[in-house]
């Protein structure tokens, strides 16, 4: 029955948790080499490790490749590039660190963030000869956005500059200027060589002019994490259990302290309860718990909060979190396609999940000079300030470096993490702006596929009047239904008879017609439907906008029937009317048609119509069948 006896050793001398340090910087600037060298020079390698590295290097015809200590994957060793981050324990005197090796290649930015996000300090490695490069800037920006407060710059490969003071001071001032623009304070700038070990663990003979710390000295100076215990209490509910008739509200304390007897507000609904007991299993009995502890609370009255509800002090207005349905955030964007206004996501904030829509993109960071520009989309791996609109008020504390507050993460309908969104504060509604708070479907894309048996998609048929768009679309609709695929056709004339009956054929009205069709297509596709749009949509720019509205599900199909053929067919007698001047601004005659440059599918006119129908049907099936 030893289980329930609390041993004496609880009162052992205190050992602090390891301090995580991330090593970042442009690809090939020597991050992995630096860590390998650091471990070797501080005698931190296990027996046999060095021999393994030497052997793996020899096999690939290399001299000792220190980076192999971290780059353990075959692809990493064969390509000489770090793909995913690694964490290894490391000790300096009595202090424990965890060194995180992050990849520098842009393609692996998400892995860099995975490694860097919980670091206390960062070493930004810059090749002294090359100076700051694109990923140096990108990583520096990220250090700021994820809230890393202590940054050490290491000018690596200084051996290539023979540790020349004038040259190194020049790079140093460039890098300092760059970080200054990001309001990042630099703890030290160390000229070093990972290859030869200069200024890593010991002072270099080659840079006698340098009076600052070695890397090891700079690491030892990184202060321990700030205490979160003195801030107002916050505990997001992680789960609610009922064991043996007792209800436990489980969660981890994000900050502050909670005591039995405290009165707490629960979530946005504002119910209040008193803490009846702070519960733990097999631990010293204490009626109090502080930041970082995973505990369970019994509440009085015995309420049942939801996961995600924030618990905070009930009686102190000043200690309450922010509350807003519109939130300004700084965004780092990790999806392969750009982000646009109007897209919907789940905002995860600790254990809470909120449906949000991008209400506006307020500024986009230009990575060349790190300035803010206007923009209507955020590129992959880009940074921006955006405003999110939620369907309900969100309780949050604004992001602040070194603390867990305001760490928003955006998740798409496929449950993929697509961006980090540190929450800056509530957003004011601009004058004249309507307070719209769109809601997003809670049905996941996977569930829809399961229910319908196929994926969704928007197939946008463009072509001259009379080119056969509607005929092909309707025939494909029928063929698909025989394959148990539900398709909807949005046909130009049909739309104009109803939804768009207020529109004429001026450029503005045509534009509006296409915009509406694109939004309807998007809504249908989001509900899991296959949508075939048959619209002349003559302008490249209008189709580009449609693609933007619909997003990644958009497939452009060019019904490529030449003008002469269309005019010869002229099923509705429109060409004849246009030629005689009865229809102004008729596409192909008196208004331009811009053919798509690279449509996803082209249906040429020199083949029988049935072939076009079969080609389109097969194309759609290939995309939507799971």
């Amino acid at each position, binding site marked *: 029955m*030893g*289980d329930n*006896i609390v*041993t004496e*050793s609880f009162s*052992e001398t*205190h*050992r*602090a*948790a390891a301090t995580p340090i991330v090593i970042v910087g442009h690809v090939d600037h020597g991050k992995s080499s630096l860590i390998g060298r650091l471990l070797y020079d501080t005698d931190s390698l*296990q*027996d046999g490790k060095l021999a393994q590295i030497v052997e793996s290097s020899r*096999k690939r015809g290399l001299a000792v490749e220190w980076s192999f200590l971290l780059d*353990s*994957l*075959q*692809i990493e060793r064969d390509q000489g590039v770090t793909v*995913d981050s*690694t964490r*290894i*324990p490391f000790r300096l005197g009595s202090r424990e660190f965890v060194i995180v090796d992050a990849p520098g290649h842009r393609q692996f930015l*998400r*892995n860099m963030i*995975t490694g*860097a*996000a*919980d670091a206390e300090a960062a070493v930004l490695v810059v090749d002294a000869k090359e100076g700051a490069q694109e990923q140096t800037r990108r990583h520096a920006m990220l250090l700021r956005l994820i809230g890393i407060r202590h940054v050490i710059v290491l000018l690596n490969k200084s051996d290539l500059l023979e540790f020349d003071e004038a040259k190194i001071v020049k790079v140093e001032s460039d890098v300092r200027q760059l970080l200054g623009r990001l309001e990042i304070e630099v703890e030290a700038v160390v000229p070093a060589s990972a290859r030869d070990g200069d200024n890593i663990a010991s002072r270099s003979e080659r840079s006698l002019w340098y009076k600052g710390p070695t890397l090891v000295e700079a690491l030892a100076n990184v202060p321990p994490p700030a205490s979160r*215990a003195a801030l107002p209490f916050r505990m997001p509910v*992680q*789960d609610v*259990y009922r*064991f043996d008739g007792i209800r436990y509200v*489980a969660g*981890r304390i994000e900050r502050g*302290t909670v*005591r*039995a*007897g405290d009165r707490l507000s629960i979530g946005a609904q504002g119910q209040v309860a008193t803490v009846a007991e702070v*519960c*733990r*299993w*097999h631990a010293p009995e*204490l*009626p*109090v718990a*502080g930041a*970082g502890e*995973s505990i369970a609370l019994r509440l*009085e009255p015995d309420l049942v909060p939801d*996961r995600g509800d924030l618990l905070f002090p009930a*009686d102190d207005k000043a200690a309450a979190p922010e509350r807003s349905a519109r939130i300004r955030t700084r965004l780092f964007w990790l999806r392969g396609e750009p982000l646009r206004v109007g897209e919907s996501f789940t905002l995860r904030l*600790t254990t809470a999940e909120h449906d949000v829509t991008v209400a506006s993109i307020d500024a986009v960071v230009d990575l060349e000079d790190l300035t803010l520009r206007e923009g209507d989309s955020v590129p992959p791996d880009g940074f921006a300030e955006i405003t999110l609109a939620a369907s309900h008020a969100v309780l949050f504390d604004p992001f602040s470096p070194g603390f867990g507050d305001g*760490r928003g*993460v955006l*998740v798409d309908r496929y*449950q*993929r*993490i697509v961006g*980090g969104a540190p929450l800056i504060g509530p957003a004011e509604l601009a004058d004249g702006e309507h307070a719209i708070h769109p809601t997003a479907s809670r049905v996941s894309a996977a569930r829809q596929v*399961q229910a319908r048996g196929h994926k969704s998609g928007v197939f946008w048929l463009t072509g001259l009047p009379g080119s056969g768009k509607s005929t092909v679309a309707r025939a494909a609709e029928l063929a698909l239904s025989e394959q148990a695929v539900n398709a909807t056709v949005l046909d130009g004339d049909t739309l104009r008879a109803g939804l768009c009956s207020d529109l004429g054929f001026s450029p503005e009205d045509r534009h509006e017609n296409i915009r509406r069709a694109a939004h309807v297509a998007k809504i249908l596709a989001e509900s899991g439907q296959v949508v075939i749009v048959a619209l002349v949509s003559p302008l490249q720019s209008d189709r580009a906008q449609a693609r933007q509205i619909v997003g990644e599900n958009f497939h452009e199909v060019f019904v490529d029937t030449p003008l002469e053929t269309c005019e010869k067919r002229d099923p509705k007698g429109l060409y004849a009317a246009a030629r005689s001047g009865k229809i102004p601004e008729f596409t192909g005659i008196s208004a331009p048609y811009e053919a798509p440059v690279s449509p996803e599918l082209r249906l040429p006119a020199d083949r029988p119509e049935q072939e076009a129908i079969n080609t389109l049907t097969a194309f759609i099936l290939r995309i939507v069948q799971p």
Partner: protein
Amino acid sequence: MTQTRILSREQSTTGTASSLAQPRIMDDLDQLEAQSIFILREAYRKLKPLSLLWSLGKDSNVMVWLARKAFMGRVPFPVMHVDTEKKFPEMYAFRDEYTKKWDLDLLLGYCPPVEEIDPSLPPAARSAARKTAGLAAMIDKHKLRGVIAGIRRDEQATRAKERVFSPRGAGHRWDVRNQPPEFWDQYATPYEDGMHIRVHPLLSWREIDIWRYIEREGIPLVDLYFAKDGKRYRSLGDQDITNPIESNASTVAEVIAELETSRTSERAGRAMDHESEDVFERLRVAGYL
């Protein structure tokens, strides 16, 4: 002002002289424990059905213990032992004893005979692949969406690349070149049918942390970890592929003292790790732990 609030709390029935009590300052083990509890609770909430791999070794005993911490003294999901039928007799005895003592819901699985395994693998790796096949069969049989496993980053260099929630796609493969982002305690959830997530609550623990925690909590272990006749096991695999190390450490405290000065790696006694540079990665991509 503060005064009256303190008074009113002291009068409350539950406040028992607690008004001025301060929270304990968390040490390294407290922090590791709190993070592991957080992870286990996330898994329990998000992944159903869920099971914990109980290999009967020290790490998985610590995991069972942490689960009991997370869920107020019980493990609210089944634990799973994928039996190679080549374990030490002491381990089977331990399993039977603690299944009862800890009131565990035990799922048993068996591994296919070694003749059914890819013959191009070196011998010890073949034995690991056998375990992978046994595990895969259990995951399919019980349609598991979450499997909790006790691997640690410091054990092996490819494990150091792992996520806390590591998605496994079709065929249980680990797509090591394309792992999802994982930061700010936001973990991947399954997004397709047939996927499962490997949950790794001990990823940040080191060998010595495990031992110090075992000491602090008084967690029971199989005797094989303690020296007899100058030898003990540092890591427990199958009988035929695990070798004991030279040691006189016969108590938890002595093991800790030994580790504080040791410079060899924990898995040095595992034959498979020495067979070729890429063998571990190949096995792990195919679903090995």
